[in-house]
């Protein structure tokens, strides 16, 4: 049974060689079922913050707890199992261009070892949830920008994670499409998923708690 994920950052720092501070002394908590929007200008450290949570990057100081697990102290072999419990929408989407929509969404379930029949049902449900059930055979290049973003969201939620992280999910989308994508995240939050979104367009997500980063520091 999956444990409830709550995020806790305790004086976390991230320094890239040769001494560039991406994040300095960051402390905050995210409660279960909360929606948190991390704002800040480009280069403020929003993406780095998300990468630290998913164990994609390692912090250089402080402690990061996700679902009670210290991510910074996790063994390399344990990281895949943490990542399977987190749904992640990447800034560049990272869709596989030679796989159709169905196969793209299937990937996390294949990784987790789901039997094919159950996985196929889940994929169809996830595609339906984001309004792409009629496009499951389409390659990513055949989809519009908004559809590609929704496909990335479907892939993030197909494993039914407790925590959904998204890095600028409305970037490069027109206003209507961005609002549509934002609505999908809000809906997931309403059904109990903890959502943390790094975005410069926080106004699209009404009701979320806001954190503001500036030059790698959290503004209180």
């Amino acid at each position, binding site marked *: 049974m999956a444990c409830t994920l709550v995020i806790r950052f305790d004086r976390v720092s991230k320094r890239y060689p040769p001494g560039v501070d991406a994040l300095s002394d960051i402390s905050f908590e995210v409660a279960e079922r909360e929606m948190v929007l991390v704002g800040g200008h480009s280069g403020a450290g929003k993406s780095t913050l998300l990468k630290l949570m998913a164990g994609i990057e390692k912090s250089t100081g402080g402690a990061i707890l996700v679902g009670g697990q210290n991510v910074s102290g996790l063994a390399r072999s344990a990281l*895949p199992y943490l990542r399977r419990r987190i749904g992640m929408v990447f800034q560049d989407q990272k869709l596989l261009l030679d796989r159709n929509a169905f196969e793209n969404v299937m990937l996390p379930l294949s990784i987790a070892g789901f039997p094919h029949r159950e996985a196929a049902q889940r994929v169809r449900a996830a595609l339906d949830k984001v309004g792409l059930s009629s496009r499951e055979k389409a390659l990513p290049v055949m989809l519009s920008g908004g559809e590609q973003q929704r496909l990335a969201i479907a892939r993030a939620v197909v494993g039914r994670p407790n925590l959904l992280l998204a890095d600028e999910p409305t970037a490069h989308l027109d206003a209507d499409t961005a609002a549509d994508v934002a609505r999908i995240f809000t809906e997931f939050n309403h059904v109990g998923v903890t959502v943390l979104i790094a975005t410069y367009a926080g106004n699209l997500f009404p009701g979320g708690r806001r954190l503001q980063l500036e030059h790698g520091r959290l503004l209180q």
Partner: protein
Amino acid sequence: MNAWLTQHARAARLALHRLAAAPLNSLLYLLAIGVALALPAGGQTLLANAQSLAGITSAAPQISVFMAANADRAMTTDIESRLKQRADIKRIQFLSREETLARMKANPGLREVIEALGTNPFPDAFVLTAADERLPAMEQLAAELRRWPRIEHVQLDSDWVRRLDALLELGRTAVLVLAVLLSIGLIAISFSIIRMQVLTHRAEIELSGLLGATDGFIRRPFLYYGFLLGLGGGIVAWLLVGAATLWLRAPLGELVRLYELTLALQPPGPRDSALLPAISAGLGWLGAMISLGQQLRQKSGY
């Protein structure tokens, strides 16, 4: 267990899909591996046939015992009965002096010379096949027979045995060296192909890692790919050797017949037929493993 099998089945399917997705490339890879492996495999097949030829010509490592020219038939019969009592002699063939004369006269080149002699110059003789065909045992037997009365000459054609043995040993060594070198070559081929595969699927590898794939999940399809390449290459090599065997059978048989021997060139036997693809598949897998070890270590996040 079920999940483990599902993961392996998925990896094998994915590897097959990748092979089928680029049929021309895959065919060329298989041919490259097949031709490389066909050389030592063909050498091994020829060697096995040469060994069987050595078996056929086992008359060569025989001992010829020539009676004294003045030995009469009773003396010869006495020697024959003594030979028959020995356990270290497997077979005795008696050649009477009359029989030898008739065979020699059948040779047109020798007939005139023999007729010019007037008398039969050939002694009675025995051709012995030793129970133990190893050279030291045969030399010991020959030495003992030389001490028997009324035996004029004992001839052990050990030079021929030694030459044949040396040739076979040389062949075995050459095949071994070739096999080792081409096995290293196969590993290098597999290494390079998997390296290209990793580069081609870099985006998928990176994404899989981000979505929670273990190292095993990422490696497995590539290992299967290397395994299948090796297996396919081994089967191609087996087909090439089999075809070459059939193709060479008639001309080689004709050549061997000129030496009054018979040989039907045989394709690789069941053991070699099973070993060739198995070893090849193993080498393909090994090449893939080495390549992945190097490639994936270089990637951040893995």
